C-alpha cells in the first residue's frame, strides 16, 4: 500500500474522474438537468434554423442573380412617380420593338438587348405532350440571359423580321418530348402550329423558388406575338431586358437608355418618363443584402434565448452548489484543491450546455430539413453554423458555470462540512 511517486503528479487534476463525478451529479437530477438544458436546446436549435433559413434565402437569391445573367437592366413600360412609388409600371404599352432596336444600336454602354413577350403554351411532338413557358425574344436573349447552346444554332435577326417558326428548346422540354432522341430539325407543335427545332439550350439547373429554368422554349418575338399568342398592339413589347457591357457601365447604360427613350417618345422636360428603367442586379443585390441582414438579426434574436439558457444553467448550478455544500466540504477535507472543486462544477455546467448544444443541433438541423421538405423553403446548413452553435453553447456553459464553480471553491471547509 505504498504510493511512492504520487507527489510528482499531485499538481495534475484528475479530469476523467472529475468528469464522471459531474455526469453522476447530472444523472441524479435528470428532470432538473433536462429542464435546464431545454433553454440551451431551444437557443441552439433556433440559431441553427435561423442561420439555415437565412443562408438558404441568400443563396437562392444569388443563384437567381447568377442564372438570370449579370449586369442586367430591365425596361418596363409605364412610369414610376418621383416618390419612387411604382404607378402602373408594365401596365401601359409604350415600348416598341424599334425602341429595343434603337437601344441596341445607339447606347454604347449596352452589350445586348432582348425585347420580351412571354406566355405559356402546350407543345406536342408525336404523342408526347408538354406544357411550358414560351419566351418570345430576339437573338440577343442568349447573351443577355447567359444561355449557351448545347446543340444547333441560334435564330437570327432575319428570323425575327420574317417571324419564322423556329424554336430553341430548354433541356427539360427536350428531354420530355424527345427522350434520348435528337430534337434538332424535328417539327414540334406549339398551340398546334408547327415549329422547327433549331437548337437546344445548355441546362442551367433548378433554382428561382425551385423553378426549373430549363423548362422553357425560346422563339423569335415576332413569331410569339403574331402566331402563338396574338396581340392587339403589334410592334409593342411587354418589357425589354438589357445587358450592360460591364458592372461599371451600368449607370452609363441606364442614363443612355433613359435619354434615348425620352427622345424617342418625344417627352418634354416637364413630362415624366413613360417607361421605367431598373438595374436588376442592384435590386437583387439589395435583396440579397437585406436577406442576409434579416438572417443575422433572426440569429441574434435566437442567440438571446441561448443567453437565457445560460442564465438558467447558472441558476441551477448555484442551487446545486448550495445543495452540495456538505459534499464540497468532504472533498475539501480529503484534499480537493481550488481547481479540483472549480473544475467539477465547470465541467458539470459545460456538460449541461454541450449536451443541450448537441441536442439543439440535432433538432435545429432536423427542423431546417423539415422546413425545406414540408414548407419548401430553401435552407442551407453550413458546418460553420453548426460549429458556431456548438462553440457558443460551450462558451455559455463556461461563462455561466464559472461563477457557481468559483463560489464553490471559495467555501470554507469547516463551514461546508457543518452545513445542514
Amino acid at each position, binding site marked *: 500500500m505504498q*504510493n511512492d511517486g*504520487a507527489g510528482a503528479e499531485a499538481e495534475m487534476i484528475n479530469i476523467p474522474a472529475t468528469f464522471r463525478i459531474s455526469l453522476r451529479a447530472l444523472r*441524479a437530477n435528470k428532470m432538473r438537468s433536462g429542464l435546464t438544458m431545454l433553454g440551451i436546446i431551444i437557443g441552439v436549435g433556433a440559431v441553427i434554423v435561423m442561420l439555415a433559413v437565412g443562408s438558404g434565402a441568400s443563396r437562392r437569391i444569388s443563384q437567381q442573380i447568377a442564372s438570370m445573367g449579370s449586369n442586367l437592366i430591365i425596361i418596363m413600360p409605364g412610369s414610376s412617380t418621383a416618390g419612387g412609388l411604382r404607378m402602373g409600371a408594365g401596365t401601359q404599352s409604350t415600348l416598341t420593338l424599334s425602341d429595343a432596336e434603337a437601344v441596341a444600336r445607339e447606347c454604347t454602354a449596352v452589350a445586348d438587348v432582348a425585347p420580351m413577350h412571354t406566355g405559356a403554351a402546350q407543345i406536342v411532338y408525336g404523342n408526347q405532350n408538354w406544357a411550358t413557358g414560351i419566351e418570345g425574344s430576339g437573338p440577343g436573349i442568349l447573351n443577355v440571359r447567359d444561355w449557351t447552346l448545347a446543340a444547333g444554332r441560334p435564330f437570327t435577326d432575319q428570323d425575327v423580321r420574317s417571324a419564322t417558326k423556329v424554336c430553341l428548346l430548354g433541356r427539360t422540354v427536350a428531354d420530355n418530348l424527345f427522350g434520348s432522341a435528337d430534337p434538332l430539325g424535328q417539327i414540334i407543335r406549339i398551340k398546334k402550329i408547327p415549329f422547327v427545332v433549331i437548337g437546344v439550350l445548355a441546362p442551367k439547373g433548378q433554382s428561382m423558388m425551385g423553378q426549373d429554368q430549363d423548362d422553357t422554349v425560346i422563339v423569335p418575338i415576332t413569331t410569339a406575338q403574331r402566331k402563338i399568342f396574338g396581340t392587339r398592339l403589334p410592334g409593342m413589347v411587354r418589357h425589354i431586358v438589357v445587358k450592360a457591357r460591364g458592372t461599371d457601365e451600368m449607370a452609363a447604360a441606364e442614363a443612355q437608355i433613359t435619354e434615348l427613350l425620352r427622345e424617342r417618345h418625344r417627352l418634354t422636360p416637364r413630362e415624366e418618363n413613360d417607361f421605367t428603367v431598373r438595374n436588376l442586379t442592384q435590386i437583387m443585390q439589395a435583396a440579397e443584402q437585406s436577406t442576409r441582414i434579416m438572417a443575422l438579426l433572426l440569429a441574434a434574436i435566437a442567440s438571446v434565448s441561448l443567453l437565457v439558457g445560460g442564465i438558467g444553467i447558472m441558476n441551477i448550478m448555484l442551487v446545486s452548489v448550495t445543495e452540495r455544500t456538505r459534499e464540497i466540504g468532504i472533498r*475539501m477535507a480529503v*484534499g*480537493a484543491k481550488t481547481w479540483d472543486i472549480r473544475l467539477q462544477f465547470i465541467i458539470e455546467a459545460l456538460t449541461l450546455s454541450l449536451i443541450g448544444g448537441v441536442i439543439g443541433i440535432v433538432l435545429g438541423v432536423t427542423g431546417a430539413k423539415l422546413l425545406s421538405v414540408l414548407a419548401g423553403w430553401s435552407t442551407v446548413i453550413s458546418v460553420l453554423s453548426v460549429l458556431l452553435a456548438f462553440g457558443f453553447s460551450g462558451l455559455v456553459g463556461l461563462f455561466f458555470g464559472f461563477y457557481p464553480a468559483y463560489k464553490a471553491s471559495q467555501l470554507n471547509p*469547516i463551514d461546508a462540512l457543518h452545513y445542514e
Partner: protein
Amino acid sequence: MALIETDRLSKIYPVGETSVRALDEVSVTVRPGEFVAIMGPSGSGKSTFMNVIGCLDEPTSGGYRLEGVDVGRRDRDALAEIRNRKIGFVFQGFNLLPRTSALENVELPMLYNGIGPKERRRLARASLKMLGLEGREKHHPNQLSGGQQQRVAIARALVNQAPLILADEPTGNLDTKTSVEIMELFVKLNRDAGRTILLVTHEPDIAAFSGRIIRFLDGRVISDEPVRH
C-alpha cells in the same frame, strides 16, 4: 521529532459585539505512534482544536508544526495537500458522499493526488478488506449500518497512508457494542500500523482505549496524563 507541536494556539470567534475564545493558548506535543483521547465538556474547544490540527481551520494566533513543518500561514491549496497526505479524518456523522458506493468513497482522497484509476481501485479494495467490509464495495451509505459506514470512513482515512488520524467523536452515533468494535479497530491501527491517533470523546470507557488523555475546559488544557491500563 514530534508529530504535532502547538505553541500557544488560540482561536477566537467573533460573535456579535463580543468574542468567544474557543482555544486559549493551547500548547500540546504529540509524538508519532501515540493514541491520544481528548475529553472535556461541551463547548470546551475540542472540535476547534481538532479542526486546527487537521488544517481545516486556521488559528487566530500561535504556532503549529506538523512533522516539524510550520503549517501556519499556508494558502488553501497547500493546506489541502497537507490534509490529503498527512491526515485522515473520521467524523461523528461519518461524512460519506451519498449515492456513492463504499469503494468510491474510499477512493475519494486518491482522486486528488494523481494515483491512477487501477491503483486507486486496488488500494481502496484493500483498505475496505482490512476493515472487514469485503463484499460491501458496491453498497451505498444508505445501504450500510452506522458501524459499517464508520468503517468505510476509517478505510477512507487510512487509504492514503496518512500518519495522523483525527477522529472527532467517531462513536458518538454508534451503540456501545459497535463503539467497542470501532475502538478495538483504532487500537489495532495504532499498535500494529503505527498510526498516530487523536480522538475526541465524551465517554471515559472510550477514552480508556487510548494511551493518553488531554482534558479541555473553556479552551484551555486542564490536564494531560497517560492512561494506566
